[in-house]
């Protein structure tokens, strides 16, 4: 290896960016090397096993839930035609606009013993006050249901994208082998898109792990509530950081395991002739089943909570939609788009560098940055502050007369660290599906790297690029307690308005901004999912030749 292998823009640029983005994560993990306070004795003896047990149960429940809903519905809408498919195909993305904690709040508003749904049942059948029809939701099962119905779109989106890119020849092979519809699904299609599904599932799990709002509302003690109990209750931020670091190490090992497990397989389509899957028409019972299967997630994850929110907002607070709302919505929107664009571009550059330069160091570092997604937002925010203060003292204050702390750049930095995993997972699986022969051909023609990236890879990655933007946009819009403390003075985002109220269970006040989040979140989902459909291989007749290398 010569120095040229290192002094190369494809290595220097990503490494520099990494150094910047990875610092807050490292800062958290480094707390493990500090002192351990006496509070550890208390945590170890009384609370830790409960945190681990509940977190594990929720992870298992949510994995099963999101896989069934996400993969099942993606398969149905890609392979079959059934009643309402045109609508359901994109409506299945709608729950993206609903954060888990909002669904949790509306669920208790509906299904608690004196909730709207129970009252309705009692009124309908004139039953006594003590009668409770719906089972209690404030437990690990309720939490798993909430996570499954709000987070399945991650799995749905990546699986659908992978199914769309799957060639019809796969199905034809299945039919030749005499498989029925279900066998084709789980014996051929599923194994072929396994990396995409697992990537989607990892996102679901990381978001589940970092969630605080929903589990706190359901009074379930998880690892994250433990982190906050140490911080807010025991006044011990250091121990809270150490707990967060332990959680991160678990996540990192999962990520490494996942990378390792698919190390040897190359999942690019070997077929020379790509032909899109032609959807088959379903009839009778199968038609009803498919429609229902795809409608239920939309109903539970989107329609139901919005009915409840609408009811709250209409009854108690509509003065939210004033001129301040416009500036708040605009702040939210451009922050989201900016973060999404930067994340997607970063992910492309980094993954290209890993692929083109076979950069092993970058590969490991990429796992590090990905875990940012699993860090509870508040803790991550403080890591970012630490970095900003350090950079201010080092360069900005004296030499550039500018202070990063409390500026919008810190906020964007936090968004990028938090949501890089989202962009990375889709871009990564997008790259995996590009045939390596293309690179080999380009190399043999002495095509420079940037040309390969911009002229060949990027056009092939359009779907992945847009998908990753959707993921980041919806993440930034709906979540992030980090923006609570990193935002500039007097700078509100919709999530901030909602979060402040919702965290105190003032749902009547939170309803209007929640609806606004959903509304603003729908716009990019709608536009980008349109673009994805258009970018489907075979959609544009003239551009089809990309696929036939």
């Amino acid at each position, binding site marked *: 290896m010569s120095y040229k292998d290192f002094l190369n823009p494809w290595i220097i640029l990503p490494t520099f960016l990494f150094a910047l983005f990875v610092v807050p994560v490292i800062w958290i993990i480094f707390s493990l090397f500090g002192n351990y306070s006496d509070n550890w004795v*208390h945590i170890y003896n009384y609370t830790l096993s409960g945190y681990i047990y509940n977190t594990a149960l929720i992870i298992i429940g949510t994995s099963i839930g999101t896989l069934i809903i996400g993969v099942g519905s993606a398969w149905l809408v890609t392979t079959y035609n059934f009643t309402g498919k045109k609508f359901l195909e994109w409506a299945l993305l709608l729950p993206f606009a609903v954060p888990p904690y909002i669904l949790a709040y509306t669920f208790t508003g509906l299904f608690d013993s004196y909730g709207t749904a129970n009252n309705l049942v009692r009124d309908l059948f004139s039953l006594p006050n003590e009668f409770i029809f719906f089972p209690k939701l404030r437990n690990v099962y309720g939490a798993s249901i909430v996570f499954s119905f709000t987070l399945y779109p991650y799995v749905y989106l990546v699986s659908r994208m992978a199914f769309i890119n799957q060639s019809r020849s796969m199905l034809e092979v299945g039919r030749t082998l005499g498989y029925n519809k279900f066998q084709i699904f789980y014996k051929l299609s599923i194994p072929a898109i396994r990396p995409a599904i697992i990537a989607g599932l990892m996102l679901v799990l990381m978001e589940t792990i970092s969630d605080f709002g929903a589990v706190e509302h359901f009074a379930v003690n998880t690892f994250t509530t433990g982190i906050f109990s140490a911080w*807010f209750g025991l006044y011990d*931020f250091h121990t809270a950081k150490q707990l967060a670091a332990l959680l991160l190490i678990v996540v990192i090992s999962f990520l490494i395991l996942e990378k390792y497990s698919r190390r040897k397989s190359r999942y690019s389509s070997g077929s020379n002739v790509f032909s899109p899957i032609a959807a088959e028409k379903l009839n009778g019972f199968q038609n009803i089943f498919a429609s229902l299967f795809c409608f239920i997630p939309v109903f539970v994850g989107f329609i139901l909570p919005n009915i409840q929110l609408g009811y709250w907002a209409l009854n*108690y607070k509509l003065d939210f939609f004033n001129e301040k709302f416009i500036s708040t919505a605009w702040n939210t929107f451009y922050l989201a788009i*900016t973060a999404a*664009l930067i994340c997607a571009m970063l992910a492309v550059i980094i993954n290209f560098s890993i692929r083109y330069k076979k950069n092993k160091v970058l590969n490991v570092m990429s796992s590090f940055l990905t875990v940012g997604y699993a860090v509870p937002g*508040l803790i991550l925010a403080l890591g970012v502050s630490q970095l900003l203060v350090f950079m201010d003292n080092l360069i900005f204050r004296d030499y550039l007369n500018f202070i990063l702390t409390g500026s919008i750049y810190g906020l964007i930095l936090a968004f990028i660290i938090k949501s890089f995993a989202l962009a990375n997972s889709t871009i990564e699986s997008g790259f995996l599906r590009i045939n390596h022969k293309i690179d080999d051909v380009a190399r043999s023609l002495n095509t420079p790297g940037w040309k390969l990236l911009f002229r060949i890879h990027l056009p092939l990655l359009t779907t992945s690029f847009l998908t990753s933007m959707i993921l980041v946009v919806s993440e930034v819009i709906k979540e992030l307690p980090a923006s609570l403390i990193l935002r500039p003075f007097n700078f509100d985002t919709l999530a901030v308005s909602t979060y402040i109220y919702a965290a*105190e269970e003032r749902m009547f006040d939170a309803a209007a901004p929640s609806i606004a989040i959903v509304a603003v979140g729908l716009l990019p989902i709608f536009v980008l999912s349109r673009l994805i459909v258009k970018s489907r291989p075979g959609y544009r007749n003239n551009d089809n030749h990309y696929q036939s290398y």
Partner: protein
Amino acid sequence: MSIITKSIQICLAIFIFSASSLANEVNLYSGRHYDSDEKLYAKFTEQTGIKVNVISGKGKALMQQIITEGASSPADLFITVDAGNLWKAQKEGLFHTITSSAVDNIVPANLRGPNNEWVALAKRARIMYYNPRTVSEAELEGLTYEDLAKPEWNGRVVIRKSSNMYNQSLVSSLVANHGVEATEAWANGIVANMARKPEGNDRAQIMAVANGEADIAVANSYYIALMLSGKKGDEQQVAANKVVPYFPGQDGRGTHINISGVGLLKNGPNKGNGVKLIEFLLSEEAQNHIVNNSFEYPLLDSVSPHPLIAQFGTDFKQDQTPVSAYGEFNPDAVKLMERAGW
């Protein structure tokens, strides 16, 4: 790819975007997020010409942010809804003494920091709500927080989770008075007496009593007024009429009091304006605004609480345990509650 080009343009626009700095301003990190507070700050700006900049969030997170920012922190004032955070910030050495005769004259000694680093802005009581059909007069006679752990309340009590700040402050005050061991025995009794697993906020506890799930709830005083006001819907208004508030400890230490408070930060660039804002918040006008919007109790004798809360009595005996004890014993309180499985 026009959407990408557009987004790049937006991106660049943000880099041009930069915060302009006004000299005459005051910066708040606030754990209180009531919409009504914004109107209050607007009044202050109107009177003094000082612009009020606010970042609101969770108290502890804001405090950590102040610590992280260190000397470059822009925050002048730290506002919280509990005494514990103020005590902790004082311990961390974040505060500066407030020099103001108004503050000295108005705020009682048990409701401010040892060197006037922080002061109370409003008071709230942590009281009980009972169902008059199932709880007898005799049972209420001289009832204290301590009594709720007795066997006669088995299966009748609702109270929210131990992670809640208001509960932590209440239990800290018990630790301050009885020590850890006795308080832990009490916490075990409370857990045994719970009508259900702790869940929901203070209002959910009151609703549980109204709906017959439990006989008695512990919750903050302003919730009853908030529910009665109808601001939170007819359902809650109806429920609020089914319960009766009760001020515990009248024959003993008195009812547990917590505060909304404010501290002056030593690294703040506009400390002078900060003191002006504190003085304004303790003025008659501001106190009236606060009590009429949040249904808290005022610090000024000349201001009376909102009628919806005043109807339940204003001259009840208040526990004189210094609120700074809430912060001091908070970790002990949390640990003993967690051990009790609260």
